[in-house]
C-alpha cells in the first residue's frame, strides 16, 4: 500500500466507540491469525475496545470480567469479504435493495449512503461469527429467489439512459462494523471501485471484449478529465463517455489509490485484466476467479488478491468451465492472497466459514483457511492495521466458538466487536423460541 493511500485510509476511518469494560478471555485455544500463531491455552485481554494483551502467560488485569473459554476456540471476528449485508434486506423486494443504483448511476454510486444498521440480517451475521462486512455494490442482476425462480431476471444496471461505459461500473464499496446499536457503522468509505466484467459485463458492453474496451476507454476519459478539469468546466473538452460524477469518482482508481474490484471468471479474462492493470497502474482485486487456478502464477507475480467462493465447482457458464473445489488450495500454494466468501444471498453469510472448511477438505491448509476469512480480507481491503487478527493494539473483534469454527454444528458462544460483547438474539431465534414453546391455547402472537 502506498504511503498516500495509507494516509487517505487513515483519514477515512471513523473512530470506533470506546468501551470501558475490560474483559479477559482465559483458558482459550487462541487462533490469533497473527505472528503468535495458535496459542494452545492462553488469555486474550480486551481493554478500551482494543486487544491489550494476548498470550499463554498473560494474566487477567485486576477488575477485568473473566470469561473462562473452557478450552474452546477463540478467533478474530470473521470478515465478510464482499457482501450486500446492511444494504439489502430481502433479495426479492426491490425497495429493500440499496446494493445497486437501479441503473441511474455508475461509478459515482456509493453503497455507504444506503447502509442500514437496523437490518435484521446483521444479528444473524454475528451469529455466524461475522463482525465486519465489506459491502460491495452490483451492477444489476435479478431480484432472485429459489433456484427455479430464475425465469425472471432484471438487469437494472444495464442502464435507463446510462451510456454503456457508465453502466459497467457498479459503484464504490464501504467497510461496515456489525455492532449492535451502532448508528454510524461505516468505518471506511470508498474502499474500492467495483466493475462487473465477464458475462455480466458483456450484458452491458455487448461481449467480454467489448466491456474491456469500454473500460479502457473510460479510464482514458478519466485521465483526460483529471488533467484538464478547467477545460471541462469551460465546456472545452471532447465528449466523455461518462458523466462528471463518474469521472470524479474514478480519479483515485487511475491514480492507483483506490482498488478496482473486478468480477470475472475465465482464465483468459483474468489475464486481460492483469494486463490492463499493469498498463494502467491500477490496484486490482479480483472477485469470482473460478478459473483462477489456471492463472495462479500470474496472479501471484502481479500481487493481485482474489475473493472466491470455494464451493464453485460447476461449469455453470462458459466462462467458468474450469471451476474446481481446490481452487483456493492451488491459488494459495502459488502464493496468491485468497479471501473466501459465502454466497451473496444474505443468510448464506454463514456459508463463508463452511466454505473455508470445504476448502480445507479440498487441500487448503487449516491456517490458510482461517486467514482467508480474517486477515486476508483485512489485508485486501487495507484494514489489516486495525482488524483481522488477535494482536495487541488491534480492534477487539473476537469470537469464542463452541468448537471448530468451520464445523457444521459449531456456533459462537460470544462475539465481541471493537471490545463490546454483542447480544445473541436474532429475528430468527425469536421466531424459533416463539414456536418452540408448548401450545397454551393462545395464538402464538401472544408468546
Amino acid at each position, binding site marked *: 500500500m502506498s504511503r498516500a493511500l495509507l494516509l487517505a485510509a487513515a483519514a477515512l476511518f471513523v473512530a470506533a466507540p470506546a468501551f470501558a469494560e475490560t474483559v479477559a478471555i482465559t483458558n482459550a485455544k487462541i487462533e490469533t491469525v497473527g505472528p503468535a500463531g495458535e496459542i494452545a491455552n492462553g488469555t486474550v485481554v480486551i481493554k478500551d475496545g482494543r486487544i491489550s494483551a494476548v498470550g499463554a502467560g498473560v494474566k487477567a488485569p485486576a477488575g477485568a470480567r473473566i470469561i473462562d473459554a473452557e478450552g474452546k476456540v477463540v478467533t478474530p471476528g470473521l470478515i465478510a469479504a464482499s457482501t450486500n449485508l446492511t444494504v439489502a434486506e*430481502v433479495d426479492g423486494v426491490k425497495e429493500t435493495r440499496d446494493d445497486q443504483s437501479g441503473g441511474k448511476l455508475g461509478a459515482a454510486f456509493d453503497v455507504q449512503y444506503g447502509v442500514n444498521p437496523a437490518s435484521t440480517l446483521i444479528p444473524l451475521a454475528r451469529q455466524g461469527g461475522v463482525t465486519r462486512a465489506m459491502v460491495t455494490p452490483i451492477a444489476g442482476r435479478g431480484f432472485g429467489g*429459489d433456484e*427455479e425462480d430464475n*425465469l425472471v431476471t432484471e438487469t437494472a444496471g444495464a442502464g435507463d439512459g446510462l451510456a454503456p461505459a457508465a453502466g459497467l461500473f457498479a459503484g464504490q464499496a464501504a467497510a461496515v462494523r456489525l455492532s449492535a446499536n451502532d448508528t454510524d457503522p461505516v468505518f471506511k468509505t470508498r474502499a474500492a471501485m467495483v466493475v462487473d466484467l465477464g458475462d455480466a459485463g458483456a450484458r452491458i458492453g455487448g461481449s467480454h471484449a467489448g466491456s474491456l474496451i469500454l473500460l479502457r476507454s473510460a479510464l482514458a476519459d478519466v485521465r483526460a478529465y483529471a488533467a484538464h478539469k478547467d477545460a471541462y468546466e469551460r465546456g472545452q473538452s471532447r465528449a466523455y463517455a461518462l458523466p462528471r460524477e463518474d469521472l470524479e469518482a474514478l480519479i483515485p482508481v487511475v491514480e492507483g489509490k483506490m482498488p478496482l474490484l473486478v468480477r470475472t471468471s475465465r482464465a483468459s479474462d483474468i489475464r486481460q485484466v492483469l494486463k490492463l492493470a499493469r498498463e494502467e497502474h491500477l490496484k486490482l482485486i479480483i472477485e469470482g476467479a473460478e478459473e483462477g487456478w489456471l492463472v495462479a502464477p500470474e496472479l501471484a507475480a502481479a500481487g493481485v488478491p482474489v475473493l472466491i467462493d470455494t464451493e464453485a*465447482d460447476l461449469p455453470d457458464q462458459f466462462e467458468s*468451465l474450469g471451476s474446481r473445489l481446490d481452487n483456493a488450495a492451488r491459488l494459495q500454494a502459488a502464493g496468491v492472497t485468497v479471501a473466501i466468501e459465502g454466497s451473496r444471498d444474505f*443468510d448464506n453469510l454463514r456459508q463463508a466459514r463452511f466454505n473455508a*472448511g470445504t476448502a480445507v477438505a479440498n487441500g487448503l491448509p487449516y491456517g490458510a483457511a482461517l486467514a482467508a476469512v480474517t486477515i486476508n480480507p483485512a489485508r485486501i481491503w487495507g484494514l489489516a492495521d486495525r482488524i483481522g487478527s488477535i494482536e495487541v493494539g488491534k480492534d477487539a473483534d473476537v469470537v469464542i466458538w463452541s468448537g471448530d469454527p468451520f464445523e*457444521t454444528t459449531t*456456533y459462537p458462544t460470544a462475539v465481541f466487536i471493537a471490545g463490546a460483547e454483542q447480544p445473541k438474539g436474532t429475528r430468527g431465534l425469536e421466531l424459533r423460541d416463539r414456536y418452540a414453546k408448548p401450545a397454551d391455547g393462545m395464538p402464538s402472537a401472544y408468546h
Partner: protein
Amino acid sequence: MGALALLAGCETTDGAKPATPPASSSAAAHEQKALPRGLDASLNPDPFPSTYTPMPSRPTAIVGANILTAAGQEIDGGVVVMAENRILAVGPAGTAVPAGAVVIDGKGKWVTPGVIDAHSHLGVYPSPAVQAHSDGNEATDPNTAYVWAEHSIWPEDPGFDRARAGGVTTLEVLPGSANLFGGRAAIVKNVPAITEQAMKFPGAPYGLKMACGENPKRVYGSKGRSPSTAMGNVAGYRKGWIDAADYTRKWDDYHAKVSKGEKAEPPKRDLTLDTLSGVLRGDIRIQNHCYRADEMATMIAISHEFGFHIAMFHHASEAYKIAPLLAKEGICIATWADWANFKMESYDGIEANAALAHRGGVCVVIHSDDPIITQHLNQEAAIAMGAGNRIGLKITEAEAIAWITANPAKAIGVLDKTGTLEPGKMADVVLWSADPFSIYAKADKVFIDGALAFDRFDPRYQPKSDFELGQPGEGAFQ
C-alpha cells in the same frame, strides 16, 4: 425417538400403483373397437419406460466402518455386504462376508445409504446455464400438468457428476415453480447415461409439481393474466381439480360401460387431466412448492375438498409454525438448513425449522433446489440438526441421516426399494471419509445398485460428461 417412529409421520401411500384398466376392458374393447393405445392412458400408463440396468458389479463388503442405516440404527465398526445389486447384510463386526467378495477396509470411515435429493433441477436447468438449456419452466400457462420433466432432462449435465461425488444416488427432478401445476417430476438413478430413460428409476411413481405463492402470481400477473394474486392461485388450483374430477368420472363411466359390453363413446384424452386424474386416483404424488404456513394450510383444505393427498411441501420455510397439522396430515416437508430471507415468503425461514418439525412428528427432508447444495446435503442436514440440538432437541445422527435418505425415499415413493441400509434393498451406498455430518467429510466411494459409480481416488470411476471432454479442467472438479 428412532427414525422408524419418525417415518410413521409420513403416512403416504407407498409405491406405484400402475393405472390399470378394469380386468375385462381389453376383451370388451376388442368386441367394441379397440382405442389406439395413445388415446387411453389406462392402456398406456408408461409410455417412456425405464431402460435402466445396473452397471457391472462384484459382491462387495465394507468392513469396519461406522454405519448409519437410516432405519434408526448406528452400528460402530460394522459390516455392509452388497451382492447382485442388493444389500445382502448389514450387521456388527463379524457379520459374514461371502467368499470372493471385494473387501473394503472401512476403518475410521462411515457408511450411509445413498443420498436422495427430493428437489433437484439437474438436467432441466443444467450447467452451463445458457438459454438453450433453460428447460425447467414451461412458463406459458398456469396449468402445465401436461409437461413431463423427463422430456427436459439433458443427461449430459455435468451437475449429475458433481452430485454423485457428493453421495447423491437418486434424484427427483422437478419442473420449476412458475406454474400452479408445473408438470410431472422425473425420478432418476444418478448414473451417467445417454438418455433419460436409461437413468429412470424403475418402478418409481410419478410426482406432480405444484407451486404456491409468489412465483405463479408474479409470472402470470406480469403478463396480465390470472393468477395475479394469492386468491387467484387458489382459484386456479380448484378449477384444475374440478376439471380433473369430471375427467376422471368420464373415463370411469366409459371403462365401466366397456367392461359390461355396453356401447360407449370414449372421452378425448387430455394430457393435463391425465396427470391430475392420476393424483385423484392415488397414483401420482403431489410435490408442492409452498413456503408459508397459511398457504400450506390452504393447500391441505383443497386436498380435502377434492380427495387427494399431498406427499410433500417443498421449501416449507414456515413448517415449524404448523408442525401438528403437518404431522396429522402425514405430509412430509422438504427444506433447507437455513436458506431464507431471499423473498417475502421465505422471510420467516429459520435454522431450526427442520428440527422443530421433526420433533413435532413431521417427516422431514433436507433438499437442495440447487446444483451446489445437492453436493453437500449431508452438511445441510448437520446444520439443521445442530440448530435443534442447541435448544435441547437431542436429535441424533442416526435420526437426522433419514432426512437425506429414508425420508426423501418415502416422500417420492421409493422407500420400498432404496433409502435405507436393509437387506433386500437396492445397494445404493456411500462410503464417507469421515463422519458425514462433518464439514470435512468427503464421499470416498459411491455405489449405485451395488456397482462402484464413483471413487474419489480412482480416475477410472470418475465419469465425465461428454460436454466436458476437451474443456479447461477436463471435467475434473476436485
